[in-house]
Structure formats: C-alpha cells, structure tokens
C-alpha cells in the first residue's frame, strides 16, 4: 500500500524535473548588448525571413503585418498574429530583447512557449545582429489595430507546457549541411536553413510534427491537404543553379511556367534579395544530399 504514495511522489518529481528542464528559456538579459541596429539591412532580413508572407492579410498591403492568415495542421489551425508596430495589438510594446527572444527561442513576452508554426526552430540559427536589424525595420512599418485571433487547437496541444519537451526534441542550432566550405555556400546555408526556413514546408514531418532531417528538402505533404510541396534536392530538381536563381527572382521556370500557390509569396520575398544571395541559395540546394522521391 505504501508504494502508491511513493510512486506518486516519484511521478511528481519526474514531471517537475521535466517541466524545469524544458521550461521557456528566453535570451539572457545582456544578449543584445553592444549591437547597433541597421534598419536597412533589417529590410533585407525581413524579406529573406519571409515575415510578410504569413503575417499580412490575404490580399492586404505587403507591409501591414496585421495577421489573420490561417494555417491548417494535424494539430489544429494556427492563426498568424498581428505583429505590426501597434503598441496594443501588435509588437510595438515589446522590448527588443522580448522580440529577439520570441524570434530565436520561441518564448513570448509573457514567458510562455510559442507554437512552432512560427518558425523559430529555423530562426534560432539567425545571428543576433540580423535579428536586431530586423526588429528595427519592423518598428518602421505601419500599425494595425486588429486584435490577434486565438489559435483553433484542441487538447492536449492547446497546453503550451507540452511545447517544452517538443522544443527539446526538435530545436537544434546545428546546421543540417554540416560543412559549407565556401563563403557562397555558407551564405546559402544561412539564407535557406535559418532565415528562409525553406525546410518548414519542403521537408516532411514525423508524427509529432518535427522535421525528418534524413529527408531534408525532399518534398512533403501540403498541410492544406492539396497536392504536394515538391522535392527541391538534386534528386528531383534538375534545373541549373542559374535557373533556380532566376526562378527565385522572376517566378519563371526554365520552360516559362510560373510559380503558383504559396511559392508566389516566397518569390515576392526572394525577388527582393540580391543576385548573389539567390545564387547562394541555388548553390546550397545543389550541395545538400540528393534524395529521390519515395
């Protein structure tokens, strides 16, 4: 009989330790010390990180981050929040440190975990200079007073505490392409794995929603249920590097079909990068392992 209280006590200790180890861990207070923001570079980071693709309204202006777009997933529907400069409904009232923590650690300014529909699992690889530049740029964008809508997700996923263990399993600051031995490849890796978060759609996910890194960029089911997100490794994408770079600039394929679906919003962003940056992304896609379609 005496075993049950003992077991119960043990369970409390294990759960407590689990909570403690996976508790929300924002950036340390001095993380941004000494960094001077450059809003001009911030505009490039903003495009490269694709912020507007998710946080603008359907058919809304490109710079009004009013939120409201819906993202279906096996766990429920996530609704992009207002991250405009509005002090009440947007992020105008957040400090730089709070914003940087949200972006690279997935912790909100109220200390809770954010859902990884916000791709902080990619942004965690961003360098903090780029992050403060980005924040400075976001503060120059117009305000929207539209309140953010709550996500539509059921139990147990609506318990943000469950995100702690998830983050422990799936967040890593290690590059998937371990060696990038030219400056171009290094830049391409940074743009693709960190800012561009391309893998969030182009890599399949396991049952818990984590990316399957052994099938990196090898194509995935479309979360909207419609068609597939294509394999963009050399195992399926046979375009030249120049053709990939051109696609990211104009949206035209080598045979003059055009990008469609979600990729149109991505091209809007990549068209704002330099030719060198687009070439770097193309070089990166040729450098990652070629994986055949299943």
């Amino acid at each position, binding site marked *: 009989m005496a075993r049950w209280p003992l077991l119960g006590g043990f369970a409390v200790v294990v759960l407590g330790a689990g909570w403690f180890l996976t508790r929300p861990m924002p950036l340390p207070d001095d993380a941004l010390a000494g960094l001077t923001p450059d809003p001009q570079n911030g505009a490039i980071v903003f495009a490269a990180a694709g912020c507007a693709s998710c946080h603008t309204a359907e058919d809304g202006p490109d710079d009004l981050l009013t939120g409201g777009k819906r993202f279906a997933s096996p766990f429920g529907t996530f609704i992009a929040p207002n991250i405009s400069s509005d002090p009440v409904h947007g992020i105008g009232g957040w400090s730089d440190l709070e914003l940087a923590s949200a972006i690279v650690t997935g912790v909100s300014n109220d200390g809770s975990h954010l859902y990884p529909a916000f791709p902080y699992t990619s942004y965690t690889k961003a360098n903090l200079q780029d992050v403060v530049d980005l924040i400075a740029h976001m503060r120059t964008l117009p305000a929207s007073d539209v309140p953010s809508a709550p996500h539509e997700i059921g139990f147990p996923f609506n318990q943000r505490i469950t995100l702690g263990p998830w983050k422990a399993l799936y967040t890593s600051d290690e590059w998937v392409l371990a060696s990038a031995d030219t400056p171009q490849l290094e830049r391409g890796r940074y743009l693709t794995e960190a800012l561009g978060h391309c893998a969030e759609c182009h890599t399949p996910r396991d049952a818990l929603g984590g990316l399957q890194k052994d099938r990196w960029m090898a194509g995935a089911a479309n979360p909207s249920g*419609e068609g597939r997100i294509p394999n963009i490794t050399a195992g399926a994408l046979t375009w030249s590097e120049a053709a990939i770079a051109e696609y990211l600039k104009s949206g035209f394929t080598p045979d*003059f079909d055009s990008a469609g*679906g979600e990729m149109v919003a991505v091209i809007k962003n990549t068209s704002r990068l330099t030719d060198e940056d687009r070439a770097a992304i193309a070089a990166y896609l040729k450098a990652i392992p070629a994986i055949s379609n299943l």
Partner: protein
Amino acid sequence: MPFKKITIIAAASAVGIVSTAFAAGHLTPEQQRGLDARQAHMSLYAFNLGPLGGMAQEQIPYDAEVASAAAANLAALAAIDESAYWVEGTDTSIEGTRAKPEIWADMAGFEAEQVKLVAATATLASVAGDGLDAMKAAFGPVGQSCGSCHESYRAPRQ
C-alpha cells in the same frame, strides 16, 4: 418483400457508385474540349514568353522584332474570351487538371486576374520593340500577373 426492398436498394447503390466512378473517370465531350483548349492556351503563353524571358534574362541577344512579335501574341492571347473553357465540373476533382474549385466559387476574382494580364501584356506589347530595358521593365509585371492567378487558382502538382 424485404428481399425485394434490399434488391432495389442494392441496385440503386450500384447505379450510384457506377455513375460516380463514371463522373470521376470520364468527361463529357464539352468538358474535354474545354480542358484541352485551356491547356493549349497555356502552352501558347509559355511559347511566346520563351523569347521574351530569354532576352530579359540575357540568355539570348535582344531582338526588337522578335520581342515585338512575341509580345503582340501574348497580348492577343490574353484578350481571347476564355469563358467557355471553364466548364463546370472540370476542377481538381477530375484527373489531369490543377484548376482549383475556387475558380468557379469566385469567378469574379478569377476574371479580375485575366483583366490584370490583359493590361500587363498590352503594356508589354506597346514597348517590347523599344529596347531591352523598356521590354524588361514591362516583362516583370506580366510574370507577376501569371503568379498572381496561379497563387489562388492553381493547385500544386500531386
């Protein structure tokens, strides 16, 4: 009596199943013609975009005459009344098309995309012979118009 009733239900279900299967696998001649026509139309866009895109991307030298002819073709293609192409029931529920049901659900929005393409190709046709820079500047909006329609109304490949 019950036996008869079951037979009737079974027969009715069989008819239902067979007709559903027929609808999924076979198009009416009118549907097939619409599908063929719009896909051919898309090929003609791609064919005429080819030389302009090649010049804009500086893969081939700029040639005012070739550019003007291709741009005039694009403008003519865009101006064609396509309304008869989009036959009811020829969306992604059938094989061989990526046309989303949103086309029929939002025909006004879909037609507005064509209006944009008409404007962009007309502008391109008016300047395509005026030098590479002028052509390039007008070519961008044509590509954006393609993307804008494909963003909302074309499904990804299976």
